[in-house]
């Protein structure tokens, strides 16, 4: 029997391409067949680019033959549906953008194309990235490949599920309050949010501009480093992109953590932390300790305010960012509107889903006359305190290690009617967005319900290297057979 190339990582495929064991075209075909077979169960993809994927694969084969391939040349991947691409549609899984075709490619898409990536298509997400379960998509409900009754997490649930179900070697998603790390944790793959400013946001449809960051979903930490190498770096089209040199992230993959101080914030390891997840994380910390790392207790005293701060800032920014979807220049316009007021009201009310409308309302409220100081300004000040917590903690440690989520993936429908509970599930991830720090989620075993748990490693600003180094060392030494999701 042929090897199942779709199970391979990007670095394994690169070796196979170089050795002539297979071709990019064959691997792309295999992935497309896999999608056709598996995706009716998983429902990760919202748009599959059959033809352009095969074209890109053939181009990649030419590059491989010519010896000009990069480590990602010919490797099939998927894009979250809020990354603008001239190919296919870009809808943010919202009805308001049904059929929308971007006139330009996002910077990350351009960079992937230059690297020779094979883009298989667009994957599902919570509408405009607002959610933690991908249930808020206007398209479909994506399933967790480990348990089809559970959510894949969100908002980049389609990205996580496509990688976990071997329907893509890697994926790009976006993380505003945990939207990469939380679904990566839920689906058992590696997901990383780089430092704010590390990856250009140009072409990422904005949810909350001061928090959004693009990052990869991969099958292992080495692939994560490879994808970061391809997408990071300054972009003059994004004022908030950092004008800093980008290191070769694969240099972090030494497996050595001796002398590394790993901070354990006491505010995260409370009694409220579920037994199973706590168990997996403590085991992971022991492994890092065995490899020479030193655990240090640190304190992030303003953690309890993070969810409140986050939901004020992200909804305020979103209320402005989403105002442009009005049916004038693009997107779906309500039919038979007789004046401009109706045009706006009916287009927005019919085009946006419930959660999006709820957040627009909340964000509008906290900015409105008389409430700005009490909510928005207060939240910005509290955000400073949260960021300062991390600065102080990093005086005592090199990375901070926590669970990615307090509990594994929940059941579909379980939290959909309780927005506040849904918001609270982002507890461990949002502080890093508020503080603009890099953080990864790396799988750390299955819970007793056979659902993945994730270990989160947070670094200092622009110190992705320390994050990758820790995650890689753990991955190399975790010593359990990870297994595969129980899919056909």
């Amino acid at each position: 029997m042929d090897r199942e190339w779709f199970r391979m990582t990007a670095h394994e495929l690169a070796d196979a391409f170089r050795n002539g064991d297979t071709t990019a075209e064959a691997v792309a075909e295999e992935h497309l067949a896999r999608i056709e077979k598996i995706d009716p169960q998983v429902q990760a993809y919202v748009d599959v680019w059959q033809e352009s994927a095969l074209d890109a694969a053939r181009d990649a084969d030419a590059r491989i033959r010519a010896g000009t391939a990069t480590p990602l040349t010919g490797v099939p991947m998927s894009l979250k549906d809020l990354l603008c691409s001239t190919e296919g549609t870009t809808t943010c899984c919202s009805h308001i953008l049904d059929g929308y075709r971007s006139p330009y490619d996002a910077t990350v898409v351009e960079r992937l194309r230059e690297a020779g990536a094979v883009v298989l298509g667009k994957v599902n997400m919570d509408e405009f990235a607002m959610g933690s379960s991908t249930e808020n998509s206007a398209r479909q409900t994506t399933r967790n490949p480990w348990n089809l009754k559970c959510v894949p997490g969100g908002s980049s649930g389609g990205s996580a599920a496509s990688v976990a179900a071997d329907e893509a070697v890697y994926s790009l998603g976006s993380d505003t309050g945990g939207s990469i790390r939380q679904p990566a944790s839920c689906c058992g793959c590696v997901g990383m949010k780089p430092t704010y400013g590390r990856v250009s946001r140009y072409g990422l449809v904005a949810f909350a501009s001061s928090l959004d960051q693009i990052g990869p979903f991969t099958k292992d930490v080495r692939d994560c480093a490879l994808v970061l190498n391809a997408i990071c770096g300054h972009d003059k089209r994004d004022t908030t992109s950092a004008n800093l040199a980008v290191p070769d992230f694969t240099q972090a993959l030494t497996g050595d953590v001796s002398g590394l101080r790993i901070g354990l914030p006491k505010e995260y390891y409370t009694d409220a932390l579920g037994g199973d997840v706590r168990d997996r994380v403590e085991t992971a910390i022991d492994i890092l300790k065995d490899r020479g790392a030193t655990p240090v207790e640190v304190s992030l005293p303003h953690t309890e305010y993070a969810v409140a701060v986050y939901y004020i800032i992200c909804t305020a920014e979103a209320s402005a960012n989403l105002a442009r979807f009005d049916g004038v220049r693009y997107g779906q316009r309500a039919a038979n509107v007789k004046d401009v007021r109706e045009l706006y009201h009916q287009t927005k009310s019919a085009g946006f889903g419930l959660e999006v409308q709820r957040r627009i309302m909340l964000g509008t409220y906290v900015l409105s006359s008389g409430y700005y100081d009490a909510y928005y300004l207060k939240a910005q000040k509290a955000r400073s305190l949260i960021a300062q917590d991390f600065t102080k903690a990093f005086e005592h440690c090199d990375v901070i290690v926590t669970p990615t989520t307090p509990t594994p993936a929940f059941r579909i429908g379980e939290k959909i009617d309780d927005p506040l509970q849904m918001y609270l599930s982002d507890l461990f991830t949002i502080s890093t967005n508020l503080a603009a720090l890099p953080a990864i989620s790396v799988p750390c075993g299955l819970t007793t319900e056979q659902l993945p748990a994730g270990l989160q490693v947070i670094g200092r600003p622009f110190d992705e290297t320390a994050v990758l180094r820790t995650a890689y060392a753990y991955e190399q030494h975790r010593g359990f057979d990870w297994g595969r999701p129980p899919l056909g």
Partner: protein
Amino acid sequence: MNYEAVIGMEVHVELNTRSKVFCGCSTNFHAPPNTNVCPVCLGMPGTLPVLNRQAVEFSVAVGLALDCSISRWSKMDRKNYFYPDLAKNYQISQYDLPLSFDGAINIIVGGETKRIGITRAHLEEDTARNTHTLGGGDSGVDFNRSGVPLLEIVSEPDIRSGAEAYAYLTALKQILQYLGVSDCNMEEGSLRAEANISIRPVGQEAFGVKTEVKNVASFSGTQKAIEYEIARQRQILENGGAITQETRGWDADRGITVSQRSKESAHDYRYFPEPDLAPIVVDTAWEEQIRAGLPELPQVRRARFEEAFGLSPYDAGVLTASREMADYFEAVVEAKAPPKQAANWIMGDVQALLTYRELDIADCPLAPVELAAMIGLIENGTISGKIAKDILPELMDTGKSAQDLIEEKGLVQISDADELVTVAREVIAANPGPAADYRAGKAKALGFLVGQLMKATKGKANPKLANEILARELGSSED
């Protein structure tokens, strides 16, 4: 009761950068609709603004020219409201920290100088343009103007009359044009003025209820609209009525302001700091660098013209009305023309010819050195002023030098006394009546005879010499 008007002006000026304020599209919004647009200025999903350095520097230059303080640290903010001409349904503007604040302009009204305070000047983006003349039930939106940099200049409520408002706008426009940061064309909308007008009993400190007059196409229209609005408000108050706070438009044809319906809800723009743009820090070094690049401003130049060239305040005012005019004048003087004569020629015949040809002084085909040369020929008696007037149009159109032109046309002035004595005797002989009158003491009669002499010489006689010779001849033949 005696009322006084309290007027504050808000002026939006388009800065003439090459590219828009947040994207690389050309600022030429007269191009065919929606051709100078890109994903950024169309507010397409995923796009981000990047601030144009030149727009910031122009804004700071205006702030300095208006005697403002410059914010060391300022930022851009989002101003949220919905309108089809607004690509993102928020305008990137500045809220609590404008680039410049606390300045002033001196205006002259009725010979009196008055200081009008400038509250602030902030940078923002212009909106698209809506067209309602396409036919059918639709309006069209053209985004060419979307994202053109706009400077909003807000005055203190220091203005008391339509005439002061007119003087304020004129002075402001003059400064902006001197800086070269805007073409200030009101018809094309690159300068837009709004007046906030209220009246109050003289002596009362509290402001009355104000109305806002918008969309006036000229400075004189603004003056008239303000005068109308003051009278209207006075009449309402005198009749025991109350002013409604509202926006009013100027109907130039009927010469009245018209209510444009007060907005149903109060504005709640939900300003917050623009997260996509970094703060603007203008340190002293940058500020000084911009200050060093400022041209001599109109007031300073006017004073210098009076002082250095001995011009009247009126002439100095006319000649410094635009930077191009002042530059032209100085170039003529530089080329050795006496200032007073240069001023007269420029303000008189040159300006008249330019007006007839619909040309701006900046595009004057007559080079300053040529004008100076022509004035020199009058001064040294080569040609008369009359000849100069006659040849000026040709001088302007052909580009020939005055010297070549007069030689070519045989227009060199007759300054040969012998030749003129002969003609003078002929003129006296041919006009015995006036000659007798002059001898009888009617000095005026000499003028007639000089005219006849000029006629006989086709205007080429040196007038001063002609006068002298005629007087002498009339006197001598009496002997």
